[in-house]
C-alpha cells in the first residue's frame, strides 16, 4: 500500500504547502496519513507501507516554488534542505528512527516545495501557490506508479 504524509502548518506562510496538498490529495481519493506537527505519530501509520511520499516545505536556497524530488533510497534524507523545521522531532529523524526500529515504510520519497515566507500569519507566496497543482500531480503519479 502507498500513502502520502504531508507536514506543515496552515498558519505559517509557505509551511502550509503540506496541508494544502493534503486537502487536494484527499479530494482526489488518495490515502493521506495524519500527523500534523508531530511526525513520530507516523511510526505506526507507515510501518507496513510499500511507499510513503512525504510532502513538505523546504528551505534550501533554490528559487521559490521549486519542486524538489528526493529519493534517498536506503540512505538518510538530506539535512541541508531545511525539512520540517518547526516540528519537535523532525521527519528526517522519524524516518531514521523508524528504520532503526523496523517501523519504516519500504520506500520513502520526498516532494519538497521551496518556500520563502514562514512567519506566523504570512500568506502563501504566489510562486508556491502556483506550484501546488504540479505537486499534487507529482504525488499522485508516485502513488499510482
Amino acid at each position, binding site marked *: 500500500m502507498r500513502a502520502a504524509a504531508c507536514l506543515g*502548518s*496552515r*498558519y505559517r506562510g509557505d*509551511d502550509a504547502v503540506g496541508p494544502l496538498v493534503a486537502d487536494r490529495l484527499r479530494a482526489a481519493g488518495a490515502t493521506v496519513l*495524519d*500527523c*500534523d*506537527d*508531530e511526525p*513520530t*505519530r507516523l*511510526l*505506526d501509520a507507515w510501518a507496513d507501507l510499500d511507499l510513503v511520499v512525504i510532502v513538505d*516545505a523546504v*528551505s534550501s536556497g533554490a528559487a521559490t516554488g521549486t519542486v524538489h524530488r528526493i529519493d534517498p533510497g536506503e540512505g538518510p534524507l538530506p539535512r541541508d534542505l*531545511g525539512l520540517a*523545521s*518547526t*516540528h*519537535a*522531532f*523532525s521527519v528526517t*529523524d522519524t524516518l*531514521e*528512527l523508524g528504520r*532503526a*526500529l523496523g517501523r519504516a515504510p519500504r520506500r520513502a520519497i520526498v516532494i519538497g516545495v521551496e*518556500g520563502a515566507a*514562514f512567519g*506566523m*500569519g504570512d500568506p502563501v507566496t504566489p510562486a508556491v501557490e502556483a506550484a501546488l497543482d504540479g505537486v499534487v500531480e507529482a504525488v499522485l503519479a508516485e502513488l499510482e506508479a
Partner: protein
Amino acid sequence: MSELDGETTREIRTDYLARVEGEGAMFVRVRGDEVEEVQFKIFEPPRFFEALLRGRQFTEAPDITARICGICPIAYIASSCNAMEAVCGVDLPEQVRLLRRLVYCGEWIESHVLHTAMLHAPDFLGYHGAVEMARDRRDLVEMALRLKKAGNTIMDVVGGRAVHPVNLRVGGMYRAPSRSQLAALVPELEWARDAAVEFTRWVAGFEFPDFEQDYTFVALREPGEYPIERGRIVSSTGLDIDVSEYEQHFTETHVERSNALHSTLTGVGNYLVGPLARYALNSAELSPLAREIAAEVGLGDVVRNPFRSIVVRAVETVYAADEALRIIAQYDPPERSFIEAVPHAGIGYGCTEAPRGICWHRYEIDAAGTISDAKIVPPTSQNQLTIEKDLTGVVEQSLHLTDAELSHRCEQTIRNYDPCISCATHFLKLEVERT
C-alpha cells in the same frame, strides 16, 4: 577565542533553521570569567492567533487556539473553554469536567514522554539523538513509544482524535464516551503506569550537572488534586489569586532586540512555570504511587536543579496514567455531555496546566458571543527570562568546558524547559564565535 585587553572573549551563538529565521536563537558572550551577555529567544507569542480570534464566535476559540501547538492542543482548548464557560456562567457537570481532565492526562503522557525519552534523555547518555539511542537501546525507545501511544489513545477515544482533538467544546464534550470505551483503555494504561514507574527509575539514575537556582515557582493549585485543568494561581512567594487577577500581578514586557515578551511577577521578577513549579507547590497532591516513586528516587519536596526536571516529568507521567485510571474507574457517563453556553457580554479568564506550565487566556465577548479581544500567555514565554538566568548561571559555572562542550551544555539547559518548538531537538545549527 581571543585575547582582548588581556582577557579572553568567547561568544556562543545558536541559530535555528533558516526557514524559521528570527524565531529562535541563543547568544552568549563571555569575557574572561564574566558572562557579559545572554540573549535567548525561543517562542513566538501567539499574537497572530489573538488577531485571528477577534470577530469570531466565542464557540470557535477552542478549535482556533488548538492550532497554536501540535503537541499540546488540549492545553489551549481547555484554557479557552474555561474562559468562555466563566463568562457564560457555565459550571461543568462533574463527570464532564473529569472527561476534560482525562483527555488532558493523555496530553501530559504524550508530551512528557516525547520530550523526556526522545529529546532529553539522549543528552544525559551522550547520544546525539534518539535515533542513535534507538540503535543501542531499542528496548527503551520501544517502551517510550508505546507509553506515548497510550497517551495518544486517550486523546483519540475522549478527544475524538489525537491530532487536534475535535470532541471538546465550550460547555463540555460533543459526545461522551461510553463506559466500555473507557474500560477498554484500562489494560494499556495499567501497563503505561508500570512502565512510567520503570522509566522514572531509569531517568533518576542519570548524572545531573550540579546546578541549582533559587526559583520563584508559579503553578495552579486546586485543593485535593494535582493541578491540571483548573485551580487558583499560586506562587512560592505566597501569591494566591483567582485566574482573573493574573494581569494585576504579572507583566509582559516587550524586549527590543527580539519579538519576545518577558513575563515578570510584580515585586519578584522572573519566575518559573512547569513541572518543577507544579511539583514544588503541589507534590502532596500526587497519587500515592507517584509520591512513592518520587520518594524512592530521592526527589524531596522541592527540586531546584532544572536538569532534574526530566525526573519530575517522569513522576508526572506516572501520575497522569494513575489519574487516568482513577477517572475511568469512577466514570459514570453524564446524561448530557455539554451545557449549552449562552453568551453574555463580558470578560472571561481561563488557565490550565499545559505540560510546560500554566497557559493563561483572556477573552472579551459581546452579548452576541463575538470575540472583541483575546490575550493568550503560553508557558514558554513566561519561562523565557528564567531560561536566560539559567543560561547565565550554567555558563558561569562551566567556563572550564571547551566551546563545543559549553554549547552542548547550553542546549541541554534550554531543553530542560521542553520549549515549544524545534529548539528542543538536536536539529540545532550551532555556531561558536571567537572574537
